[in-house]
């Protein structure tokens, strides 16, 4: 995908393309604004939870830029975003739908969240699993340290201050959300049905959009790993491996949801990173989304390991991948393995990023716990 974008960039600087690219460009800017607003929400929630745990003094929160600003800047200045925008890819639109969904859920605009979710699912199917973080977001509010911690804290102080406790899980907004999601999906489907009447109706649409995504029919090279695998695999195993690869995503949903249920936005980030790694036709636009969202958790992930290594890796791979593609397609001196090697390295980098991100987040929670429970002991001694 990357070299394609580069090539298009070279001969696409013409006026008639400007209109399309303007739409994509506006989409990106709008996404960045939504990311910023959501980031500010998250930051308020973070500060609130720190306050209620009396940890404001111990924890340095970066004051130069708030996490929302950082996330928006990362999203806008990320070369991946720029390349996806210049290449007139549709991924900025898909990204915007996802961000819209998260923004709506964070600021409790249930119809907006439902709309974002329905559109994102309609556009690229994979965001369907974001329903879990959205439910958590609506049910118990944005990211906070584990609820257990608050309870412990207040038991120690033996003053049960209800106002400082995070809210419990409430079902009302979720029912609202379900209602709205149903409404929007019916609406979208009806619209699609009307507009696609002469092209074979809605069933044809399902087959050639979701079916196309799920059966990995197009094996042209991209930065993912599936094209190579399904080009190599024997035909009679194909269905089996299709199931294996898609179940792979589903398998990871539940454990992560249980472990990270107190941090729904981070859960959403992890889900997005996972499906942009395992989806059938990944592009750099998907990476741009989760790298941007990473900026939300700049305070929590400050101690993330391998940051430098990951940076170098992303940098190197994004340069090496077009060169390998060039060597294979244009110069004919390389072969598919050259390019696939970079795709594998890229996948490994994404795995490391997710693993390190999750472990840094869990470490952060552990640190908060130590701070809340350990401090009285220190004071005594």
């Amino acid at each position: 995908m990357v070299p394609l974008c580069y090539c298009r960039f070279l001969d696409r600087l013409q006026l008639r393309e400007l209109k399309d690219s303007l739409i994509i460009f506006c989409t990106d800017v709008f996404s960045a604004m939504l990311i910023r607003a959501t980031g500010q929400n998250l930051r308020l929630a973070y500060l609130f939870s720190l306050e209620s745990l009396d940890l404001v003094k111990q924890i340095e929160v970066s004051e130069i830029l708030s996490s929302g600003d950082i996330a928006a800047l990362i999203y806008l200045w990320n070369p991946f975003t720029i390349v996806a925008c210049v290449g007139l890819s549709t991924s900025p639109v898909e990204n915007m739908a996802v961000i819209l969904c998260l923004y709506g859920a964070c600021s409790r605009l249930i119809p907006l969240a439902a709309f974002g979710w329905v559109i994102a699912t309609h556009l690229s199917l994979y965001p369907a699993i974001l329903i879990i973080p959205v439910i958590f977001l609506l049910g118990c509010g944005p990211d906070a340290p584990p609820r257990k911690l608050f309870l412990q804290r207040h038991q120690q102080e033996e003053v049960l201050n209800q106002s400082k406790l995070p809210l419990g899980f409430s079902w009302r907004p979720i029912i609202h959300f379900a209602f709205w999601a149903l409404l929007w999906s019916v609406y979208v489907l009806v619209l699609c049905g009307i507009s696609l009447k002469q092209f074979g109706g809605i069933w044809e649409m399902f087959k050639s959009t979701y079916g196309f995504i799920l059966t990995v029919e197009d094996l042209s090279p991209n930065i993912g790993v599936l094209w190579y695998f399904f080009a190599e695999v024997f035909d009679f195993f194909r269905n089996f491996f299709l199931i294996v690869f898609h179940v792979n995503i589903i398998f990871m949903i539940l454990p992560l949801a249980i472990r990270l249920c107190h941090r729904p936005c981070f859960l959403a980030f992890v889900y997005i990173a996972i499906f942009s790694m395992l989806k059938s036709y990944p592009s750099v636009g998907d990476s741009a989304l989760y790298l941007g969202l990473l900026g939300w958790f700049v305070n929590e992930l400050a101690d993330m390991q391998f940051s430098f290594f990951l940076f170098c890796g992303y940098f190197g791979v994004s340069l090496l991948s077009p060169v390998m593609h060039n060597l294979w397609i244009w110069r004919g001196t390389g072969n598919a393995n050259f390019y696939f090697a970079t795709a594998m390295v890229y996948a490994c980098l994404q795995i490391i990023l997710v693993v390190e991100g999750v472990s840094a987040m869990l470490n952060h929670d552990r640190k908060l716990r130590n701070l809340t429970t350990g401090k009285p002991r220190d004071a005594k001694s």
Partner: protein
Amino acid sequence: MADTKEKSESNEKPKPRIRPIVRLGIFLIAHSFLVSVVCCTAGVLALFLLPVLAKNTYISENALMPGSASPMLANQHVLEGNRLVNDLTSSNLKSSETGIESQRIIARYMLDLGAEASIHKFHRQLNHFHPLHFFSSPDSGIIEENYSCSSYGINTVGIIRAPRGDGKEAIVLVTPYNALKSGLGEALSIGIAYSVFSLLSQVTWLAKDIIWLVADSRYGEYAAVSAWLRDYQTPKFSSLSTLDAEMCPDIDNLYDLKVNSITGSKFSSSFKRAGTMAAALVLKVRNKSDQFEDTISIYAEASNGQMPNLDLINVVNYLAVHRQGLHVKVEKLWSLLNSSWLKILGEIFESLGKVAKSLNPKWKFGITATEYVEGTATLASSLYYQALGLPTGPHGAFRDYQIDAITLEILPKFSSDKVRHSDILLRGGRLIEGVIRSVNNLLEKFHQSFFLYLLTSPSKFVSVGVYMIAFALLIAPLPIVAASLYVDASSLGNCSKSDKSTPSASLDTDEHSITIGSWMWLNSAKLVFLVHLWGAIVSLIPYVICQIPDCTPTTSFMIWVLLSMLSFLTLYSVLASPLSCAKASQEKEWALVKSVTISSVFIGLGLMSVINFATAEIGALLMVPMCLLARPLKLDVRAGTLRSFSRMIGNLVLGLIAFPPAAFFLLKGMLDGFGSVNVGAFWIWVESLWAWNSATYLFIGMVHLPCWVLCIHILLHTC
């Protein structure tokens, strides 16, 4: 790199049980100095071992079957060729004003054979600065402005349709010919091509069309061939050509052929095409030579160090040596042949080989000292021409379209009698015939043998799997040293942090206070990024300079240096000054900068090794020691020991040598003698690099120069 980094960082947390592989990583990082010395020495040594490790070439593609058929080229064809040579030389004596006469003669000869003949007109295209040419496909060229008729070149193209083929594939034979001042050599090359062509018009085994291109080399051989190829590969549907022909009357003369010729009907002024090209041979005869036997020299390097498939060279080499008894040679760096240190090295390797053979008779890697010296000279020239990234002949134009092509230059034994000419025609013609017959057998395009190799002699090569070892050894210390520096710097940062922090959380500070510890490298990364940005600006400046009319190379170079320094100062004052006050807080900032620099150099060299290996190898030889040794001079001066003093001297010398212009002058002085070196030479060299769209230019501007600047920054660091 991944492993080492991972290991290095897991080093930070003391764990009760450490896995063996992690322990190995920690060991490597802890002994990074030793490891880097060993690896670098091994890398340089492996480079010198390459001629010893070279393997004999073999023909990998079975379908080629070179020499399986006896040559059919007979005296009758040679006579026809001789007739054409005589006609051309005599018409040359008549000296027609535009050389149109000789083109007409060639076209008539082609038509007489029953081949399709056509002419192709092209404009001379000036080389344009096109930095990302490497990534894009060759374009159809910029739409021409108004050219006068005088800047036309005329290629003559003859095509034989294969009786057994479906017209989807073709083999190309190119003979550069300058009608204005052609010597006997060029006429002879056309004679050889014609005798082969006349044979091929009769044979029945032909399965691929034969295209014979007589390239008008008055604007350079490469320009003519690349112009023809561009038009061949990118069909134009405009009526530009007909308009042009009307404008220029003398070209119309050629169309008279249509009327004159009796066999007629096959001559056309429109562009003629055959199928996709399987291979191309460029044939040249050099007339003035002082060889003692008939020799063929092979030129294979195309742009950016790309080589044709090794099988093509193998076929030519096999047929020339074993069938025609010609002596085959490839380019050598002659100055290396007489160097005494290389001879000593060769003798050492020879005696080592003998010792190894006495230990186990099956080990046969010993080569004689003279062989070693010759192999090294050939390897050095192979590396040099690949690293330059300029094609060594018209064959380079073919490689841009993934067509394998080589240039064969026939150097006949010195003599002047006519019999010799026929002999040259016969042997050269049979060689070409054999090669064409082999390529004709191909079922697919060349893919069996190597594309990535270095030649140490016409029949010996070093494949990518071998020479990459030398390169990998050379750059292996980079990630290790970067990791160790990074670990040192970040642990030091943590320590200083813990000293400053309040004693309330003294028990486990690292766990309690939240720092941006793991993101400390961002500042250094910013600096490195800025310097690379500056590098990009510097490499774009010549585009502006070459717009200035009437500039001598020396002044252009001076303007370039001035503008670069100006842009550096601007960037520094605008972007980097707040950085300098931020970095005062960290004592070991230089270590982080060095770590990031080394990582960026590692990425750059790795990238370049894929694009153009030879450039990366030479760059690594210069940059790796400089990067690894760099250390603030102030620290060394403060230490005052002998070791730090010698390191300081080494740093200064490397800092001087590795500066790109300095390295250029040094290399040029070593090869050509220091008398010819002047400042403008560097500009001319750089201009040729970017005019030919060599990736080496980008490498120097965006990897080498920034690396040098960063190393100087580290050397002058105030810590």
